[in-house]
C-alpha cells in the first residue's frame, strides 16, 4: 500500500510497468544497457560482463525479461542470445521508463520500489 502511494505521482501506465516489470537493479541495468545499445545481440555471459553483474543473476533476469516480453531470446547454433524486444509497445514503455529515470525523483521512487519488492521476496523466502 505504502509502495503504491509512493508510485502514485508517476504516470499510471509507467507506474504499472515499474510495479510489474522492474523488480531488481540487475533488470534495470540490463534494460539500460540494451536500450542505449539497441542492436545488441549477445550471450548471457557477455551481457553480464557488459553490466558488471554476476552471470547467475543476469541469466535469471534475462529469462524473466523474456517471459515479461521485454527481451527476445534466439538460439544461434544452440546458444541462447538475447536482444531487446522488437515489439513497439514494449520498446515504447522501456523508453518511457528510462527517459523518466533521468529525473532524480523518479529514480528515487524506482529504487524504493525495488528495495520494497526485495523485502517482500526475502520475507516470502
Amino acid at each position, binding site marked *: 500500500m505504502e509502495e503504491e502511494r509512493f508510485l502514485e505521482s508517476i504516470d499510471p501506465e509507467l507506474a504499472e510497468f515499474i510495479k510489474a516489470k522492474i523488480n531488481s537493479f540487475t533488470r534495470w541495468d540490463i534494460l539500460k544497457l540494451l536500450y542505449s545499445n539497441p542492436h545488441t545481440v549477445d*550471450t548471457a555471459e557477455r551481457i553480464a560482463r557488459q553490466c558488471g553483474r554476476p552471470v547467475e543473476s543476469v541469466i535469471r533476469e534475462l529469462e524473466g525479461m523474456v517471459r515479461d516480453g521485454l527481451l527476445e531470446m534466439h538460439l544461434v547454433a544452440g546458444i541462447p542470445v538475447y536482444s531487446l524486444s522488437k515489439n513497439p509497445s514494449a520498446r515504447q514503455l522501456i523508453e518511457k521508463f528510462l527517459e523518466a529515470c533521468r529525473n532524480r525523483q523518479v529514480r528515487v521512487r524506482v529504487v524504493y520500489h525495488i528495495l520494497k519488492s526485495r523485502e517482500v521476496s526475502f520475507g516470502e523466502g
Partner: protein
Amino acid sequence: MERVKTGIPGLDEMLSGGFYPGSVNLVEGAPGTGKSTLGMQFIYNGIVKFGEPGLLITFEEFPEQYYRDAENFGWDFRRLEKEGMLKVIMTSPEILKLDLERVSGMVEQAVLEKGFKRIVIDSITHLERLASDTVELRNLEYSFVNALKRLELTAILTRESPVLLGGEMGTYPLSYMVDSYILLRYVEIDSRIHKAILVLKFRGSDHAKDIRRLEITSKGIEVLERFEGREGLMSGTPRRMAESFVEAFIRK
C-alpha cells in the same frame, strides 16, 4: 571496374578509386591510429554520399561509444539508425561467426531486408582469440571471410596491432585472404608523433606504394602527402635520407 569509394580524402586515390565491391579489406594499426574512425567514416560516407546502408559490428566497444565519437565528427549515427540506413550491433565474436554460417542469420536477414552494402567489423582481433592454433585460426578466418563475400558486402575488418611504434610485421593468415591490407602506423619525427598510412596489398589492382601522412581532423580522417626525405618509416623511427641522395634524386 566499379569501385566502392571510401569517400575519405586521399584514401580513394591511394586505392586507385576505392575498394572492389564485395571485397574484404583489412585495416591494421595500434590503438589511436584511426582504425575505428576510418571504419566509421567508410560507413558514414557510404550512407550520406553514396546511398549505401551500412552495418557496424562491435565486439567490445559499446555502440554508445560509436554514437558519441561519430557525433564529434558531425556524423549523426542515431538519426541514421532511425532512418534504417545504419545498424550498430554489439555481439560476441563466436555468435557473429555462427550467425554468418547459418541460413537466415541476423546479418543475412539485415542485408536482405535493409539492403546493407557495407560492413565494418571492429575488431577482428577478438575473433582471432577463438582459435587455439594457427591451423584453426586459418580455417576460422577463411570461413568468416567467405561468409562476408557470400553476402556481397564490402567489408572493412579492423585489426589491433600489438606494437605502438615499428616492430616486425607479422604474417597473419588473414592478410593472405583479404583483398586489401592497409597499415596505420605511428611515426616519430623530430620528437613528434605522426600518423602514417600505407596500402600494403591490393589484390588485382594498382595502388599507391608510398607511405603517407594521416590526420584525424574535426571532420574525420584525411590522407595527406607522402613523407619526404625519410627512410625506415615503418620502423616507427625513420632516419633522414642521406643528404647526397636527397640532392641527387629529390631536390631539383
